[in-house]
Structure formats: C-alpha cells, structure tokens
C-alpha cells in the first residue's frame, strides 16, 4: 500500500513538473555524455597502446616476406641473422643502454594483433606470415633511442627500427587534452545539473506543500514524505544517464565502428560493447548526483 502510494506520488510529481523534469533529463544527459566521452577517450588510448606499449619503447622489426628495405635483400630474416641480432643486443656496447628485450615471433605477433584488433574486420584477413617478427626493447633511458636505431637499422635482416612511443605519444597527448576538456565541460554541466535538480525538487515540494503539510500532521514518516521527491530527481537523472550511455554506444557503433574503422583500418578502435562498461558508472553517477542534491534541498525546504 505504501509502495503503491509512493509510486503514485512520484507519477503525479513527474507529470506536474514535466517541463522541469525534461530539463533535468537533458542536463544530466549532456553532462554525463561528456563524462562518458572522457571515459571513451581513455579506453581508446588503452586500446591503441596494444600489448607492448607500456612494456617497451623500441621495436626492431625483422624482414618479412614482402619487405623492400635495403637490409632485406635476402628476403625473410634467417635464423642466423636473428641470432646475430640477439648477440649484438647482449653485447656490452648495446646492453648498457637497455634493461631487457624480448623476441616476438610471427605467431606471438599474430596473437597480440588479434587481441588489439578484435573489433576490426582486418583481423580476418591477416595471417601470421604477414606479420614481422621483432625484438622489443625496454630502454634504460628512452631518450637514447637514436643509439639503438643507428646500431641496428643497417644490420642485415632488419627492416626498420621504430620508437613506438614517439609515434603514439603525440596522438595520446591530443587525446588526453581532449579528455581533460571533456571532463571540465562535464564538471560545469554537472554543477548545472545539481542546481537544476535542486530547483526542480524545490518547486515540486512547493507545489505539493498542501499534501506534505497534511502528511506531516497525520504522522506520515519522513521517508514516505520525502522519498517521492528524491526518487523524482533520481528517476529523471537516471533517464538522462541512460540516454548518455545510449549516445556513447551509438558513437562507438556508428562513428567508430562503421566510419572511422574504414577510414583508418590500421587503427584499433574500441568496440560498442566496451562503451557499455561505462553505462553502470554513468547511471550510478547520475543517481548519486540527484539523490544528494535532492536530499540537501529537502532538508531545507521540506520540514518534516
């Protein structure tokens, strides 16, 4: 009975304040979309880092089938060439600059590639043969990249030496800046959302002061009196959060999945499913914001 009553009260409150409720939904929608966008950018950065990014700085790619580099005149790197490179890496002249190194065979490379590009159709058209084997080097001082590059670039069996960090770092710094901007906008919008929720609850409490006054007099408990107002704000905010989650999913599905992945087939993009991991966080954030904001408002404007 009490539950049915509270639900009825929520319904009538939402109907009576429809335009305010819609604005709460929209403001939480926009603010949480920005929060989610920042989250998506971070997910995307992780996705692009791939298997090696946080472990090593420099990669020495060995010659593969179709390599055209000067050092690849003899075709695919032979086991002897590979051994020579390993010996060179372990020689004191080089080893003083590196912490350690690992060898990534074609099969390892294929495995890591499949993980990183799991969302991309490209994974079906790639075979282990097409991926080069490589030495992955963890530098003592990443700035000494030049020494490794000069030593190995001209070795037989080496296609190219890449400072992975340099390639991605600039892109990541742009993406990090973008997430920071998204977080700042989200912060401003969240302040808007909190104030708007507070105002909405206040108006709602005012328009129903007759009911709440009577409820107080006949001895309704604090929960019965306040819960409809709190849930009103929470429901509106959760709807906004759901819309934000849906928007993020749509961006991942249509923009990244359908458009960007065709434009940049060699980039690993996050999958729509990954954005859904953000949804519970957004819903919880929206509900918490609304709950706290309405509790504080009611404490001031709805005497019990």
């Amino acid at each position: 009975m009490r539950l049915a009553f509270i639900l009825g009260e929520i319904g009538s409150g939402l109907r009576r304040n429809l335009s305010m409720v819609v604005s709460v939904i929209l403001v939480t929608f926009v603010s949480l979309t920005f929060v989610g966008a920042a989250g998506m950018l971070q997910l995307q950065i992780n996705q692009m880092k791939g298997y090696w990014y946080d472990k090593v700085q420099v990669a020495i790619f060995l010659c593969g089938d179709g390599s055209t580099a000067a050092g690849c005149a003899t075709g695919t790197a032979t086991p002897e060439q590979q051994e020579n490179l390993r010996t060179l890496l372990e020689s004191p002249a080089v080893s003083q600059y590196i912490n350690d190194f690992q060898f990534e065979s074609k099969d390892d490379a294929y495995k890591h590639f499949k993980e990183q590009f799991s969302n991309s159709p490209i994974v079906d058209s790639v075979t282990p043969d097409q991926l080069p084997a490589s030495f992955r080097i963890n530098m003592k001082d990443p700035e000494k990249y030049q020494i490794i590059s000069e030593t190995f670039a001209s070795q037989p069996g080496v296609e190219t030496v890449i400072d992975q960090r340099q390639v991605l770092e600039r892109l990541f710094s742009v993406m990090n800046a973008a997430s920071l901007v998204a977080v700042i906008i989200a912060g401003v919008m969240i302040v808007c959302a909190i104030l708007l929720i507070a105002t909405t609850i206040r108006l709602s409490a005012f328009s129903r002061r007759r009911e709440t006054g009577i409820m107080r007099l006949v001895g309704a408990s604090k929960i019965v009196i306040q819960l409809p107002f709190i849930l009103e704000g929470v429901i509106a905010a959760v709807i906004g959060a759901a819309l934000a989650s849906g928007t993020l999913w749509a961006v991942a599905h249509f923009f990244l999945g359908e458009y960007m992945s065709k434009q940049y087939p060699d980039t690993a993009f996050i999958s729509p499913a990954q954005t859904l991991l953000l949804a519970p966080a957004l819903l919880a954030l929206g509900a918490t914001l609304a709950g706290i904001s309405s509790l504080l408002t009611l404490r001031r404007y709805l005497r019990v």
Partner: protein
Amino acid sequence: MIRFENVTKVYDQTARPALDSVNLEIDRGEFAFLVGASGSGKSTFLRLVLKEDRATSGAVYVAGQNVANISSWRVPRLRRGIGVVFQDFRLLPQKNVFANVAFAMQVIGKSRSIIRDTVPEVLKTVGLEGKEHRMPHELSGGEQQRVAIARAVVNRPGILLADEPTGNLDPTTSMGIMGVLDKINQNGTTVVMATHDDDIVNEMRKRVVELRNGVVIRDEARALYTSMIPVVGQSRRLKDASGRPDESATGPGDGSVPSSAGESK
C-alpha cells in the same frame, strides 16, 4: 493527556512571549475550549502539543511523555495520536471526499481493505453519508470542515486539536460542527478547541481556558466565554472564584458554578 509545566514560548526575543509560564493539565476524555483574543497564544499552544515548535522553557507532556524527549524520527508516531483541524479546512482540492479522508490512512501505510472499511464509517460519524464522491468545491463550508474532521479522526487519535474550526462558518453551521466534535468527544477522544466564538462556548458549557497575552487568566469548568469572575489583574486570576457573574455574560447564567483551576483538574 496533555500537561504544560511552566511552559514559555518566545518566538522573537524583542517581543513578549507568545506563551508565558503556562501550567495546565487536560485529562483524558476532556473537552476544553482555549479562548482569547487574536494573538493571545492559542495556536502556539496547539503547535507545542504537536511538537511543531519547541517550548523555550518548561515541559510539554502528551500522553505522559515529554515531547522534548521524542526524537525526530518518532515525531510521526506522536502525530498519529493527535488529529488536527483548522479554520481553512486544508482539503486536497483534486481529491474527492473519500480520497481526502483515505489519504490520511494511505500515508501511514494502512491497507486498502482497512481503508475501504474505515472511511465510510468515519464519514457516517461526521454526517457525510452518501457524499463520498463529491469534490471539495462541491461542498458547503460546513461539509468541508466535516471532511477535515473525518480525516483528523480516521486513524483514531486519542487527542483532537481544533484551531478555530468554526471561524469561517455561520452560527448554524458552526453548531453542527460542534455537534460532531461533541460526538467524537463522547467516543472518548480528548478535544481541545481554540476559538473566539463566544456563542459556541456559551452553548457548549465545557471547560474554558482563557489566554491573554500568552498568560492563562482563567480556567473554569462548564464555563461561559466571558468570565463570570471579574478579572482585575493577573494576581487575582483563578483563585478569585468568589466574584459575581459578569454583567456582559450572554449565556444562561443559571446553574453554572464557576470552579477554580484546582477543582477542574
């Protein structure tokens, strides 16, 4: 049932107290009028009983319990034991008669079947049979006040507080309302009614507590609105029961014996 011990209520430090050292006891099942000019502290008295406000000093006991010791989450339970009606009825305009009364039961979690059984019974008590489905604007003032009374007593409170319940009604309608309140009192509910309607008080011949500027200046059983004791100053109040009936008393003076405050307790 209600006991005030030396209760003072100050709203505004610069003004005189709304209630000033009030000592009063109202027994279970009693019917008491609280009379006095506007601003004499009648509503303040009722608000203190409901714990809508805190006494500045002194103690207010309701059903044996000092309301100052009731924690805020148990105040609703205190209020379930007290019904209240006001001059302005305070009905919910978009709910019909039945729903207005049922509202008081819904919000404290009474089951649908109990509500269905109890509400018509209470509406019968207040004389509104067959008007369950009327909207408040389709009712006369007297009928609206009956709905408000039904709502106040539907949860069977031990105390009914009425703050000028006849203030908006004509004399005939007012007497009808008094009949309802009397009936509720007969059923065992303690009734405290604030009023400055002298005809009603004179007609009812119940206990009268008179306030002036927050001070109890008279407390008489079966009394008239205007004191039959000449009140000269506060020092002579209550104890001075030997005075002759006041000339201005309009009610029937025969057989009414003014009693002192001590006897009326």
